[in-house]
C-alpha cells in the first residue's frame, strides 16, 4: 500500500490484531507538531461499522492520560477504514527498536496498566492489550490501539482481519463469549508481561499457521506461567490471569510493577 487519504506511507510497521500499521508522513492539514505519524489501515468496513469505530475512537481519544498514544484522526477512503496516531519510534514490546531491559519491560507494562486504568475510569475496556500495543518510550511506555473487533463486527471477539497474534493475550472468558470487562484487560496485561519477561506465551508454541488449531489450543489449554520467571513477576502474572474476582485492578498492577522496577 502506498498511502491512504492524504497520508503518504513510508513503510509498513507490521500487522495488528485487525489491520496493518504504517509509518506515514504527516499531512499538512493535521495540526500537530510531528513529521511522522502512524496510520492503521483496518480494511473494508460498512458505513455503520465506520461510524461505530470512529465514535469509539473519539471516546478513546477523549481519555486524558500521558500513557495513552494520542490519536489524530479517523477516516475512510473508498470504504477502507483507517486511523492515525502519534508515532513512537521506540517500537513495541513485540517489535522494539532496541530490546528493552528487564526494567524497561516492567516499566512499559506498568505504564500500559496506568493507561488501562485511565480507560477503565472512563468506562472503556481496551480489549486488545498485547505486546504489539505496548509501545516503548524513554520514560517507560504507552498503550496504543483500542481493540475494535467488537465494533467492526458486533459479536466477534476477534475479527479475521489480521494476524492471530493477540489471541494468546485475550482473556479466555472473552473468547468463550463473556462480555469485556476491566478484568479482561488486566488478564491481557499479565499475559503481555509474561511474554515480554519470559520470551514466550502462556500457551507455549502455537500453530499460528492454522487459525482453527491455534484457537482450539488456546481454548482448550490452561495457561501456564513459565518457571524461569522471577518469583515476584510470576506471582503478579498469576494474579492477573487468575480468578477474575481476585485479580488486581489495573491501578494495583501498575503500582506493584513500579515497585518491582525500582
Amino acid at each position: 500500500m502506498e498511502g491512504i487519504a492524504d497520508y503518504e506511507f513510508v513503510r509498513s510497521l507490521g500487522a495488528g490484531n485487525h489491520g496493518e500499521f504504517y509509518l506515514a508522513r504527516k499531512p499538512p492539514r493535521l495540526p500537530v507538531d510531528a513529521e511522522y505519524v502512524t496510520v492503521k489501515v483496518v480494511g473494508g468496513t460498512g458505513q455503520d461499522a465506520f461510524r461505530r469505530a470512529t465514535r469509539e475512537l473519539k471516546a478513546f481519544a477523549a481519555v486524558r492520560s500521558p500513557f495513552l498514544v494520542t490519536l489524530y484522526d479517523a477516516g475512510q477512503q473508498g470504504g477502507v477504514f483507517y486511523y492515525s496516531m502519534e508515532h513512537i519510534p521506540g517500537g513495541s514490546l513485540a517489535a522494539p527498536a532496541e530490546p528493552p531491559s528487564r526494567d524497561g519491560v516492567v516499566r512499559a507494562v506498568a505504564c500500559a496498566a496506568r493507561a488501562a486504568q485511565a480507560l477503565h475510569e472512563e468506562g472503556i475496556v481496551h480489549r486488545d492489550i498485547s505486546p504489539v500495543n505496548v509501545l516503548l518510550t524513554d520514560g517507560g511506555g504507552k498503550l496504543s490501539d483500542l481493540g475494535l473487533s467488537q465494533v467492526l463486527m458486533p459479536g466477534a471477539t476477534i475479527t479475521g482481519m489480521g494476524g492471530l497474534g493477540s489471541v494468546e493475550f485475550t482473556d479466555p472468558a472473552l473468547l468463550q463469549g463473556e462480555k469485556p470487562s476491566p478484568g479482561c484487560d488486566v488478564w491481557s496485561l499479565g499475559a503481555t508481561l509474561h511474554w515480554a519477561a519470559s520470551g514466550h506465551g502462556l500457551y507455549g508454541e502455537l500453530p499460528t499457521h492454522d487459525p482453527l488449531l491455534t484457537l482450539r489450543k488456546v481454548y482448550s489449554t490452561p495457561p501456564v506461567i513459565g518457571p524461569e520467571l522471577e518469583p515476584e513477576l510470576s506471582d503478579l502474572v498469576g494474579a492477573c490471569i487468575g480468578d477474575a474476582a481476585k485479580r488486581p485492578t489495573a491501578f494495583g498492577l501498575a503500582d506493584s510493577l513500579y515497585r518491582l522496577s525500582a
Partner: protein
Amino acid sequence: MTEQGVGVVRPLPGNGLIAHVGGLLLVCDAAGAVAGELLDAVQETAAGGGDGRALARRVAQVLARSMTAEPITCAVAGRAGGGIAVLVSGDAQVTITGPGTDVRLDGQDVLTWTDRLVPGPISGVELRLPDAGQPIRQARLDGGVIPGGGLTCDYTESGGHVAPVSQHSRSSAAPVASEPPRPTAPPPPEPVRPREPVEYGRHDTGPSLPEPDHGPAMAGPRPAEPPPPHPVTPQGPPPPDVPPVQRREFEQPPALVTDPEMAALGGGVPVPEEQPEFESYLLIDGQGEQQQAGTPGSILEPTEAGPTPEPLNRPMVYGVDCKNDHFNDPRVPYCAVCGIALVQRTLVPYKGERPPLGVLLLDDGMTLRLDSDYLLGRDPERAPEVTSGEARPAKVTSPDGSVSRRHLRVRLDAWDVNLIDLGSVNGTQVQPPGDPNFYDIPPNEPVPILPGTTVRVGVSRTMRYESHRKG
C-alpha cells in the same frame, strides 16, 4: 512537456547492467549478488504501478536483506509526484538536474545507501557506475534490461518521439544495437504481453489505484499501434523468425513493452485527484469534529460513545442452577461451568437469562460469540434477517467465490445451536465430533450441532463450534 512522462533514456556504455521499465531506472553491477533481486524490484514495482518512491523502498529492502561486507553497487530512480526519488549505493553515483536543482549523490559518501526525494521540476537524471562512458546521442533505451555502465534520462525531451512507433519496429531495438559490449544480435522485441493481469500486464498502468486491469488507463489512445501479435498467450513463445533473446547471467525476462501508453503513464504517480475522496474526523483534543470532506459532521453526534452494540436482553430460557449458582441447560448431567454434578431430580427449572452458548471459530481467526443469531455470507449486511435485527451479520468470503451472499443462518433455540443453510449454491456440510465424514445439510431446515462440530461453508471455508458446554 513531460511532467509525468518517462523522458528519453539513453544508455551509457559500460560493464554493468541497466534497466528501464516504465520510467523506473536501475543501474547495477551485473555480477553483483543481488542483480536479479534488484531487477525483480524494478519489474515488480512497475507491474504494481509503483512510482520512484515505491522502487526506492523496495530496493532498500533488497539491500538491507543482503548486507554484505562490500556495499552493493547500484542506483535507482523514478518519478515521484512532480519530483524524483533516487537511491544510490556502493560505487554508483546519481546526478539530478532541474531549474535551480543540481543534486549529486555518491554511494561512497555513506556507509549503507543514500536515498533522496527531490521535489520538481526535474529536467534530467543520470545514474552511473564508475566505468560508465559517454552517452551516444542516437542510442535510446525505451524499455528493457541491457548491459551498460549507466544511463541518463532527459525529462525535457519528450518520450513521444519514439514511443508511437510500434514495438515491432527497429527503433526500440536500436539502443541495444548501439551498445558496445554486445554488438551482436540485438534483443528482439518481445511479443507484447498486453494486458495479462498476473505477470507484467500492469506496468503500463502507472497509478497504483486499485483499478481493475481493464480500467480506464487502457482506454487511452494508442496511436499507430497494431494489434499485438500474441494477444492472449501470455507465456507464448517468441515469434520464430526473431533471433533468441540474448541473455546474460540473469534470467530476467525482458518482457518490456515499448508502448506509447507506457511512455505517457509509466512514470506517473498516483496523484490525489485520481483517488476517491476521503472522509476524515479529527480526534485531537479541542479540535472539534472538523472534517476534510464528505457529509456534515453528524457522524459523531451520538456522542455518548456507547460501547459496542450488545443485545440488550439476553433471551430467557428454562434452565437449572448448579450448587454454585451457574445457570445450566436442564438436560445436561454436569454443570457446564464448574463441572459439578447436577442432581436433576432435586432441581426445578426456572426461566433465566441464557448465557452465551460458546463461540464459532472461523478458519481465518474470526471468533463469533454465540449470544445471538448470525447470518453468514458474502454480503450479509443487506440480508432481511440482518436488517430486521434478528441476526448479526458475519461476512465470510472465499477466494473461489463458493460462499453465497446469504449462505447460512446460525440460529440459537433455547440451549441449542442450529444451522440453516439458506439455499446456498454450494451448500453447507457438517462433521459431527468424532466422525471423520462431512455430511450435507438440507437447505432451509434447522440442523442442531454439538460442540466440536466442524462446519464447511461452501467449498473452502470452515468453522468450528466450540463450547465448554458439552451438549
